[in-house]
């Protein structure tokens, strides 16, 4: 069955092999000649670019400011996609991917410092 | 681009209309209808405060509610009554008919304030009996002017 990029991929939840959320498919990267799908892009920078206008610029700017290491939106190689159903399932664990800048920062500076942050609920 | 401009124009017009409407309502002089609504509202709030105090008092004397509960209820009733009095005195009567309304309701509110007990320890049979005629007066005012 054919895959529809806007319908089947865009805005769908990406989960790792243990079903832990990784991010949304905020955009899809195509090869330079536009023939092949090469990667999924996730993160507010990719999302803001899709919004356009003032709101989009604001989202992108905020996300850029939080991205201290200037890594750009997170790229997930399309090779890592195991299957697509109600979510996009990856064949790897979340820990193997680069953590989102905001999550890493909050974990290190706020949440990780509160007692009990490492206990499962 | 055109669509964005269209939306912006629609938005501006809506804001301007809402602003103008709100401005008109805020500056419109008080007429008979406005005054009656304010007066009946104040009377209803005062009536509610007295009725609450009298129901609570009855229940407290029968040992059916606790003292902290009764105190809270009386606090609420007092602040509701104060709010009603302020709502009433904030509007000046525009004509003779409304002046007559003011002269009837004003004394009732003063009496309500005098008979409403301040603490649960003041809720005696006598205090409850004193509330009843004021409550009836407010009720009559509401019925007559509604």
């Amino acid at each position, binding site marked *: 069955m*054919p*895959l*529809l*990029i*806007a*319908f089947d*991929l*865009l805005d769908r939840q990406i989960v790792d092999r243990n079903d832990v959320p990784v991010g949304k498919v905020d*955009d*899809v*990267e*195509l*090869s*330079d000649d*536009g*023939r*092949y*799908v090469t990667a999924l*892009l996730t993160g507010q920078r*990719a999302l803001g*670019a*899709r919004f356009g206008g003032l709101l989009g610029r604001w989202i992108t700017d905020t996300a850029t400011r939080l991205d201290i290491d200037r890594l750009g939106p997170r790229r997930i190689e*399309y090779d890592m996609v195991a299957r697509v159903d109600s979510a996009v399932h990856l064949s790897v664990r979340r820990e193997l991917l680069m953590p989102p800048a905001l999550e890493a920062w909050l974990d290190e500076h706020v949440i990780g410092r509160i007692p009990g942050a490492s206990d499962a609920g | 681009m055109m669509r964005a401009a269209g939306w912006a124009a629609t938005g501006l017009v809506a804001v301007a209309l809402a602003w103008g409407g709100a401005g008109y309502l805020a500056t419109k002089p008080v007429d008979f209808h406005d005054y009656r609504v304010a007066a009946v509202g104040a009377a209803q709030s005062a009536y509610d405060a007295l009725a609450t105090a009298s129901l609570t008092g009855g229940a407290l004397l029968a040992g059916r509610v606790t003292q902290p509960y009764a105190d809270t209820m009386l606090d609420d009733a007092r602040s509701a009554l104060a709010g009603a009095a302020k709502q009433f005195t904030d509007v000046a009567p525009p004509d003779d008919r409304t002046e007559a309304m003011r002269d009837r309701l004003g004394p009732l509110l003063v009496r309500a304030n005098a008979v409403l007990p301040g603490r649960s320890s003041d809720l005696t049979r006598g205090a409850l009996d004193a509330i009843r005629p004021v409550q009836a007066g407010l009720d009559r005012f509401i019925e007559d002017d509604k």
Partner: protein
Amino acid sequence: MRASDLLGERAVDGSGRDLGRIVDLVCETDADGRPELVAVLAVRGPWGRLLGYEREQVRGPWIVETLARWILRRQMTTVPWRSLRWGS
């Protein structure tokens, strides 16, 4: 290039006829297992996504489906990748 660069752009066929805006890109797995773009869906008129009714599996409620499919039939075209010309 990103998918969002193409989505929303105008598409024009060989004879220069306007096909509307691109609302979706169709992929199929090629011989090497890579997802290859084979066609685009273009829609005339103001509709973007139609809640998924462009796909067969989305059905009912009857009245919503009928309405969505009616709009789709009139306004949606599938254009093979090869025969695409890009409008401005």
